Structure formats: structure tokens, C-alpha cells
């Protein structure tokens, strides 16, 4: 009797296990077009494009929302919600004609009212720094017809158009925090916190030539970096961006690796307001003592673009390659400068690094090693991201930090505005009256050449003053399962899922 019961129990258990495991093994990808893309963090700020602040959020929202214009992969601005635009000769009046056939994801047509509503929300100053200051230049926004929007500026600004990549959303959406409705190639379907976000291609997308190829996109949140390679090789995700070279070396032959840049200004940012970093000689000494190539070789497998100021190479005409060599590694020179500044025996300081960004942690470790040669002791202080944001970025209570700064749009102002002495994003407390004058000149300049020259002057001042120790724009390694193709890099921190397709 007992034996029978035991046998029954055992068989039930074994059958369950077999069925369940069998179910697992039989879990083959269906052939309908879909892709699972791993992302390192969930959307934790908002689905509302105006409140989205994290770079990781914005790069996803890029597929859902569009502005009057949008960037293409070469960094040019192309018409999006607007089919065409005219800029008056003196550069103050922008007239946009909206597309006839453009629809929001909820099926409603995009009207001039929606555009005015969206832009006015931004102009109310709730949004990001650079955008808010650019929009404060708007004198008037009006909608003379249902498909025309006229924006009048207080002062001409040739950069203004790049700010109109700001998303257009429907006025009727009462809760943009949790309901994402845009005009982009993909529409938001659903999400499960810390699990996934599901997008589906938008059938009525206006741009038939660039219509999204893959029907369903599952963005799977992989918070544990140690499991990324296992999940790629095991087949539960098909794509992951910003892998390290170590991770790439562990990938199976199922993957193609695309190499691009991260579009970040990675630097050892110095708090210019405190001793000893308030002395330009100390800052320059650090620039001479730190060898960016050594960092690339030690921590990045030799890959990355070395930079010497606050602009990275994909910014094209604004970028000054010569600044990368402004401070060639020179230990003697560094020691001399330190002696002049009154630190012949070096000093001790701390590098505060967010522990969740391994590349920055690695960089800080190499820097600490390099600085030993000039007698400087750098202690690495690992903090949580939340602590970094409140203490370092907002509170400015730190000595130095390693971080990458991104640009929200392809205007040099997006990277350079934060060095203005009164900018809220000036977490390095950089203070130079000459710089403030130069950035004012750049931003108010109407002539494009004069503007570019003024921005370059800004970069030169940052380099001369050694505002921080600039290192590199990091390499971006993207793994894509070879069932798919078409990954495209942008000069901005965005992902374009619409270009992906099945082979």
C-alpha cells in the first residue's frame, strides 16, 4: 500500500518535471518577425518625453515619439511631423507645414493644436536644461491653420531647429506618464516593471520608405550584468548594446558585433571650486600625468576615441581633433607644475564613481595607478547611482568623478552650455568669464560660421583651463544575433529599432 502510494507520487512528480522541462526546451522562436532586445535598466523616470531624463529612457522613446524634425543617422535634421519648414531671412520666424497623412498611435490625426500644446509644455520650463533655455527664446507660437505652426523667436538662433526634435504628443492624452502616444515607427503596447517593455510596429507610420521591419519588439530588462552573455548565448535575447570587449569575446558564433561610439564625453571631472583643483596648474598637471591611451589599452582593449575637450568626434564641424594632443603624457612636466602649485610631494584625493558603471570604475582604477607616478594618491569611492546624482551632480559635494556626459541633441551647445559659470548642469564648478563671453557669442550668433568659430573658442578655453581631464568617447560594441541585420549607429545617444530587419 505504502509502496504504491510512493510510486504514484514519484510518477506524478517526474511527469510534471518532464512536461515542464520539455516545455522549456520546446520554446523555439516563432518565425513571425519579432526580436528581444536586452536593456540594462527599466524606464524608471517616465514615459512622458518631457519628463524622461535618463539617457537609457530617451534612446527607447526615440522610437515612439518624433518632433517637428528628427535627426537621421548622419546627424542631419530631417522633417518628421512637419513635411516642410521655412525660416524667415532674419532667422526669427519659423513656419512649419504638418504632414497631411500623419497620425498618432491612437489613430487621431496630428493637428497644429497638438504641436502648439506640446511645444508650450516644454516652454513652461519643466524640461531639460538646454531645451528650457532654448525655448525661453520663443516669443510666440501660433497655429494659423489646422496644419500650420508658426514659431516666432525673440532673437535669431541658428541652433534653434535642433531643439525642435522635442516630441509632439496629442493634447488629448490625459496621462502621458503611463500612456505613451506618439507618431514614431513603434507604438507602446505594455510593460511589466523590471521585466519588459513591449513595442509593436505602427501600421500607419507616415514614412513608408522607412517603415519598421520587425513587428514586435520586446525590450527585456537585464539588471544583472553578469547574465548578459549567458542570455545572449542561451538565446533569450537577440541584441544588446554597449558590451565590454570581454563580454564580446565570450559570445557564440551566432552573433555579429557592430562597433561604433557611445557618444559620451568621458572624463575625470574635477570640482574646480575646491582645493587643490581650483589651481589651474594642478589641473594641467593631472592632464599631463594621465595617459588616455594607457586607459584605453588597460581597460578598453585599445578601443575608443581620445578627446581633449568637451566635444566628441561625431559632432563633425564642431569637433577639434587637435585638442586631443594638447597635454601629451609628460611626468616631468606634471611634477614641475605640481611643485609650482605648492604640491612638490603630490596630494591625496578621492574619485567618486557610480558603482553600476563598470567602464567608469575601470577607468578610475587605471587613473589611480597612473597618478602614483607623480606622487598623487587617488582613493576610489564607489557610490550608488542615486547617491552620485544627489551628492555629486546636484549637490556638487565631491572632489573628482569619472563619468560620461551625453548630448540630447546635435548642437554643440548641448555639450558646452553646462560649462557656463551659472549653468545648473555645471557640476564641475567651472568658472571662467572668458568662457561665459564666448558661449554667449556662440549662442547668439546668427551666422553659422561665426557660431562654429565661437563654439570652437569655447572648446579651446576648456582645454587651456584644463577644466577636467578629458579621456575619450568610449567604444560601443553591439551584439546582434545573425538572424537579424541593419543595426545603425547615430551620432547621438539613441537606438533606431526601425532599421532592424530579419535576414
Amino acid at each position: 500500500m505504502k509502496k504504491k502510494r510512493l510510486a504514484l507520487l514519484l510518477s506524478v512528480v517526474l511527469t510534471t518535471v518532464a512536461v515542464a522541462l520539455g516545455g522549456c526546451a520546446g520554446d523555439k522562436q516563432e518565425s513571425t518577425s519579432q526580436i528581444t532586445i536586452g536593456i540594462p535598466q527599466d524606464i524608471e523616470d517616465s514615459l512622458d518625453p518631457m519628463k524622461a531624463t535618463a539617457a537609457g529612457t530617451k534612446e527607447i522613446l526615440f522610437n515612439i515619439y518624433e518632433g517637428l524634425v528628427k535627426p537621421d543617422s548622419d546627424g542631419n535634421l530631417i522633417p518628421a511631423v512637419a513635411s516642410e519648414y521655412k525660416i524667415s531671412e532674419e532667422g526669427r520666424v519659423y513656419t512649419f507645414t504638418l504632414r497631411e497623412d500623419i497620425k498618432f498611435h491612437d489613430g487621431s490625426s496630428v493637428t497644429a493644436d497638438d504641436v502648439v500644446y506640446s511645444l508650450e509644455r516644454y516652454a513652461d520650463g519643466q524640461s531639460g536644461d538646454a531645451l528650457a533655455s532654448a525655448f525661453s527664446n520663443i516669443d510666440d507660437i501660433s497655429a494659423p491653420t489646422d496644419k500650420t505652426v508658426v514659431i516666432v523667436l525673440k532673437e535669431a538662433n541658428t541652433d534653434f531647429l535642433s531643439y525642435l526634435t522635442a516630441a509632439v504628443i496629442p493634447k488629448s492624452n490625459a496621462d502621458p506618464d503611463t500612456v505613451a502616444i506618439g507618431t514614431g515607427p513603434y507604438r507602446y503596447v505594455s510593460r511589466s516593471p523590471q521585466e519588459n517593455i513591449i513595442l509593436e510596429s505602427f501600421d500607419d507610420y507616415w514614412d513608408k520608405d522607412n517603415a519598421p521591419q520587425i513587428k514586435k519588439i520586446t525590450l527585456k530588462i537585464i539588471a544583472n550584468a553578469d547574465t548578459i552573455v549567458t542570455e545572449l548565448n542561451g538565446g533569450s535575447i537577440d541584441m544588446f548594446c554597449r558590451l565590454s570587449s570581454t563580454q564580446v569575446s565570450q559570445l557564440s558564433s551566432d552573433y555579429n558585433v557592430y562597433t561604433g561610439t557611445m557618444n559620451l564625453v568621458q572624463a575625470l571631472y574635477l570640482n574646480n571650486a575646491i582645493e587643490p583643483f581650483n589651481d589651474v596648474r594642478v589641473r594641467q598637471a593631472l592632464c599631463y600625468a594621465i595617459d588616455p591611451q594607457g586607459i584605453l589599452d588597460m581597460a578598453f582593449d585599445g578601443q575608443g576615441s581620445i578627446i581633449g575637450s568637451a566635444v566628441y568626434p561625431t559632432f563633425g564641424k564642431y569637433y577639434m581633433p587637435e585638442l586631443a594632443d594638447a597635454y601629451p603624457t609628460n611626468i616631468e612636466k606634471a611634477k614641475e607644475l605640481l611643485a609650482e602649485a605648492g604640491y612638490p610631494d603630490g596630494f591625496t584625493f578621492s574619485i567618486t564613481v557610480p558603482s553600476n558603471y563598470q567602464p567608469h570604475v575601470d577607468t578610475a582604477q587605471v587613473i589611480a595607478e597612473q597618478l602614483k607616478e607623480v606622487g598623487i594618491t587617488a582613493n576610489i569611492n564607489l557610490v550608488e547611482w542615486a547617491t552620485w546624482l544627489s551628492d555629486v551632480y546636484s549637490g556638487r559635494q565631491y572632489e573628482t568623478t569619472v563619468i560620461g556626459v551625453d548630448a540630447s541633441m546635435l548642437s554643440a551647445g548641448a555639450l558646452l552650455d553646462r560649462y557656463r559659470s551659472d549653468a545648473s548642469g555645471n557640476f564641475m564648478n567651472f568658472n571662467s568669464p572668458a568662457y561665459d563671453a564666448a558661449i554667449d557669442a556662440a549662442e547668439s550668433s546668427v551666422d553659422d560660421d561665426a557660431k562654429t568659430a565661437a563654439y570652437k573658442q569655447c572648446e579651446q578655453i576648456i582645454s587651456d583651463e584644463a577644466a577636467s581631464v578629458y579621456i575619450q568617447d568610449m567604444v560601443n560594441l553591439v551584439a546582434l544575433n545573425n538572424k537579424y541585420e541593419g543595426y545603425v549607429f547615430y551620432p547621438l545617444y539613441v537606438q533606431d529599432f526601425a532599421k532592424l530587419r530579419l535576414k
Partner: protein
Amino acid sequence: MNLTYVLKKVISLMFTLLLTAFLVFLAFSVIPGDPVTTMLGTQATPEKVAALREELGLDRPFLIRFVSWMGSFLDGTFGNSYSYHVTVRSMLAGKLPITLTMTCMAFVLILLIAIPLGIFLARNSGSIPDRIMTVVNQTIMAFPPFFSGILLTLFFGLILHLFKPGGYVSYTTSVPRFLGYLILPAVAIALPKAAMATNYLKASVLKEMKKDYVRTAYSRGNTTKGVLYGHVLKNAIIPVITFLGMAFTDMIAGSIIIEQVFSIPGIGRLLISSIANRDYPVVEAIVVLLAFLVILTNFGVDLIYRLVDPRIRSAMEE
């Protein structure tokens, strides 16, 4: 079961939950990091920080915030998540079944392994299988679940391909595949506990077997089987029940780590990300919920004692 007993339990439950909630609240006001600067990220300006702080009610004094949070707890919404802009209840509703299913599966595994094995080893104490199992048990106990989790993933996932690492399937998509995915994580958390439970049961049975009533039972002509199942087991199981109760609560908390290893989007994942984002309505709710589950389990253990052993019942009611 009398009313005073229940009342006592309920009051102690309320008090523990309140204290837990208060401590978590206090911890958040002490640790660095701030939900507002975390939400605004690199776009924080002093004006925007102040505006958002007011919007979320974070500009109010500590105690008022605590009381207002309790209000949201009592009305059942548990407040709104700062990161997700939805009620915490709606978030937990989707996550709790995942963690509980995994823990319950692990618990069933422990019972299935430990009870037959413990009895078998006690009956064959000193035999070769017993000696082998003693060594095996010691080894398994030394394995932390996250490590055995990694080993299981490697072996079943990357070598045998019976299991898709990170291929978690939601229970809303397919229940069998959901359960299938949870087997290995459940095994990982169950193994060390099962080894311990086996040892407990074996030791407890052996100890009971030496007692006088066992000799009496034998002298009345009972067989070993009769003595074991009729008398000894009932007494021997009591310390094991205590252990199983502790193991269950331990596994609920331990699932936080194993969810990371197996990429399971349960309560643990949500808790960790919410701490990182300083999303404290979510953290509060999860910690209080875990505390509640622990207390509930202990209460359950008490009840089982009383069913198994009438002596405890009378002792408790005195």
C-alpha cells in the same frame, strides 16, 4: 484555540509591521540619495527639484510623510510608485505570485526530499548509504543558493540545453512554461535547506528512538515500522516543523538573490531596483509584505504544532 491567543497574535503582528515600516522609513531618511534627484537625473535644477519635491509631498516633515504613507497603506493602494506612476498594489499584484510560486515549489521539494530521506537514513543509521549521504549533505549545505544557481544554469542551460538561461516565461503567457522555468531556481534554494532538514529529521528520529516509551512500545510487541510511524515520528517531527517554518521565511527573503541569478522579475528584482531608485513607496510595501509573510508563517507553524502535539496546545493556553 481561544480568543486571547488570537488577539495577542494580531496585536503583536500589527506592532511588528508598524515597527518594520517605521524603520524602513527612517533608513531612507538617513541614507544618501534622494528620489527627486534620481528622477531628474542630469536635468536637475534647484527649481525643478523643489517643484517635484512639492508634487510628491517630500517637502513635508518626516512624521507627516509617515502617517500619510500609512493612510495609503490602509486604503489598500500602498501609494504611488515614483518611478512607474501607478499604484504599488498594481505592481505587487503581478510580482508576488512569481516569488511565492517559486518559494512554495522549493518548499515542496524540501518535503519530498527530506522526509523520506531523513527517515530512511535514521532507520539505516551507520550503514554505507548513511555515511555517503552525510558527506553529500555537508557538501550541499555549504553551497550558497546563488552559486548552485549559477552551476545549475551552466549545466542544464549551456551544456544540456534543457533550460534557456534568462528565458523566463510569464505565467500570463503559459503556466506550464512558467513553472518549468522556476524548477531550477526552486532547486537552487531548496537544496541546502533540504540537506539541513534531512539531518534534523534523522537526528531527531534517532534521539526519540532511544527514549523509554519506544522500549515500552517494542515490549508490547510492535514492529520497528509500527513504532516508527505510530509513535516516534509524531514526536520527532516537532523540531523539524520549527526548522521548516524558519526555512520557508528564509527562502522568501533568499529568493531576492536567486531572482537576480535567474533573471526572474519577482518581488526581489523590484525591491532591489526600487532601493536603487529611492522609490520608497515600493520598498516600504515590499518590506512590510515580507515581514507580514514571515509573521504569517510563524503563526502557521504555531497552528501546526497544536495539531500535531496536544501537549503544546495545553501549554499555550495556560
